[in-house]
């Protein structure tokens, strides 16, 4: 039949197989340096990753008339609510210039983190059908949900840039480059915790509910709807260490970086000193966490199929 490589005779196949090395079934999770091996394996599966991301995105708004417009409507509504309720009615806008852009830039980068974490936490469980039946590197699933989070982030970014144009404060300055370390920082921590939580959620389904709560806390623990200077005014004198702790929280750093990049109105508000250095250190720590949490993931993934 023409369907399956008709030229291969049994003898040719046997000869080819004879030359192939025997590999251990499943992933070499106990082999030292497996993290580097898995990077290569995921690279080999990048088309699958791509398809899984597409599947996530396609199925999300399938059968809805507006489709992807919804990904725009949500953040815009959010923007309007925060602008009016927080800014105008509660009066937060009085102390923060360009409040709409301020709040939305923070929400955009935080939204990326929160969607990455929430998506990857449930990714292994929701792909249980696949994991139980087919072997692929399991890291693919959290990474795929991170990919679809990145796509939504891209859309929000468009809204954000649109908002800066509407308000007339186009971020056309060198500080726009803060965008990159901020996103990289969030990506590193998102991958690290995403892997850890995805694996833990298999064993303890409580994880996904816990994560919801923690994400809500994390949002209020970073200067998104209020400003960093408000916190530093309260804490600098009395609890200097607490301020440092608060500032060095990677999400705070990323949010601040985003403010630097997009929030023209606040160009002369105080920022913590050495923001880039702090980001750099946070990235290094984050990379160590990615490695460590991936080891945890690799150790736990052997039993995924039977726990699901």
């Amino acid at each position, binding site marked *: *039949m*023409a*369907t*399956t*490589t008709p030229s*291969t*005779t*049994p*003898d040719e*196949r*046997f000869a080819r*197989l*004879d030359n*192939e*090395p*025997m*590999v*251990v*079934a*499943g*992933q070499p*999770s106990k082999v030292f340096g497996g993290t580097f091996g898995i990077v290569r394996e995921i690279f080999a*599966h990048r*088309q*699958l990753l791509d*398809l*899984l991301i*597409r*599947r996530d995105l*396609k*199925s999300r708004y*399938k*059968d809805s008339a507006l489709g992807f417009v919804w990904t725009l409507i949500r953040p815009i509504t959010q923007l309007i609510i925060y602008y009016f309720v927080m800014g105008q009615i509660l009066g937060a806008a009085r102390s923060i210039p360009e409040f709409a852009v301020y709040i939305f830039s923070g929400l955009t980068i935080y939204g990326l983190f929160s969607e990455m974490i929430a998506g990857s936490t449930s990714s292994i469980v929701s792909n249980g*059908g*696949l*994991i*139980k*039946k*087919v*072997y*692929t590197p399991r890291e693919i699933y959290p990474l795929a949900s991170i990919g679809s989070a990145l796509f939504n982030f891209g859309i929000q970014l468009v809204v954000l840039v649109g908002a800066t144009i509407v308000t007339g404060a186009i971020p056309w300055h060198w500080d726009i480059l803060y965008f990159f370390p901020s996103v990289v920082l969030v990506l590193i921590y998102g991958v690290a915790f995403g892997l850890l939580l995805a694996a833990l959620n298999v064993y*303890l*389904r*409580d994880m996904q509910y816990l994560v919801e709560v923690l994400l809500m806390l994390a949002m209020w623990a970073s200067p998104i709807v209020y400003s960093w200077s408000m916190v530093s005014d309260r804490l600098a004198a009395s609890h200097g260490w607490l301020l440092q702790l608060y500032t060095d929280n990677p999400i705070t750093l990323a949010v601040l970086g985003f403010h630097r990049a997009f929030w023209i109105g606040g160009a002369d508000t105080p920022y913590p000193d050495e923001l880039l250095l702090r980001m750099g250190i946070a990235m290094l720590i984050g990379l160590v966490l990615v490695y460590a949490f991936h080891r945890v993931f690799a150790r736990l993934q*052997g*039993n995924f*199929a*039977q726990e699901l």
Partner: protein
Amino acid sequence: MSITHDNAPGRLDGTDTRPTVVSISNVSKKFVIRKDNSLKERLVTLGRAGRRHSEEFWALKDVSLDIPAGSTIGLLGPNGSGKSTLLKAIGGIIEPTKGTITRRGRLAALLELGAGFHPDLTGRENVFLNASILGLSQAETEDKFDDILTFSGIGDFIDTQVKFYSSGMYVRLAFAVAIHTDPDVLLVDEVLAVGDEAFQRKCLDKIREFQQQGRTIILVSHSLGQVQELCDQAVVLSRGEVKFQGSAADAVKNFRDILEGRRIAEAEAAEPEEDANPGAVTKTEVIVEGREPGAEVQPGDTILVRIEFSHTTPLDRWHSGFKIETNLGTQVYGTDSRMLGLVHDPLRGTAAVEYRLTDVRLGGGPYFVHSFLAQPSGAHIAIQRQAARFVVADDDEASGVIRIKAAARALTA
């Protein structure tokens, strides 16, 4: 333990030089069955108490096998014997607790058709996704897409979301994808049991074609006929241990004995059941003329079926009868006194009937006799299921439930 030394003739030449594709050495798999699954329960039953809330279960115990390329291996065993676990371990889906499994070549697992189909995506999108999961690149899938579509017979529905597919379409598409991934090793778990007959036929043909191409197939099936037909070698598992390995025919025989042992044990356990029915089939006996009791039936033998009945109240008019079924419950033969034109005398207490079956030519394998006592209308008063069992000698020249004298010759053009 190795089945490469097996004396069954291999399908392919050069059996001894065939490379090993899957090597299983001393593999054990432990499952821990937990009865607590939430954080609260886990915390409450932490430590010592936690161990009481979990049970250990060894699904595989010290299994070793070497599977040579190009062979078709059947995994047999009663439910819960570890067949599927072994297959999943080979597929790398679960990790063995002890021991190692090494393999080479491209592997495709047909553990569950349509695993990974997303209901909201169209057939076409799912084909690409599923092929990618099974290890095919985008370009390769595009090349094979037309073949996949033709084989599946889905037609224009390919651009419909799969949630609107009938279950048959779903299965056909999934199978079509799986077999077009050009595997060296194919793992098949019971999936051949789904789909209509025409589709099953197609699947089996495809598997035969795979065999000719020297692909290795590891098959889990409860259909012994299928194993005997398709496999050259088979392994019998029971409670996680390898009970037998060797030629498919021997393995099937061995497995039947295990099943028969279990059936008798279960029947004995179920025995003490009070019956308010006044009528009963008290005894059914199968006698093969000219052979020892329990000996295999040879083609052409005469079989006597003797059935004894009892009825507590007088019964003026009644019928007797029996059916012969295969071990899968397919009726092969059945007759009764009404069809044969025999009028029984009124039943007072007990009665006995003998049926004489001459020149019986059944295919090889075990058969069960169900005998019954019926009213004139045909309604059963009492049935004795699996009342007797006999085994027909295997037919070396053919398969199936009947024996036909066959000869083959080449036609010259």
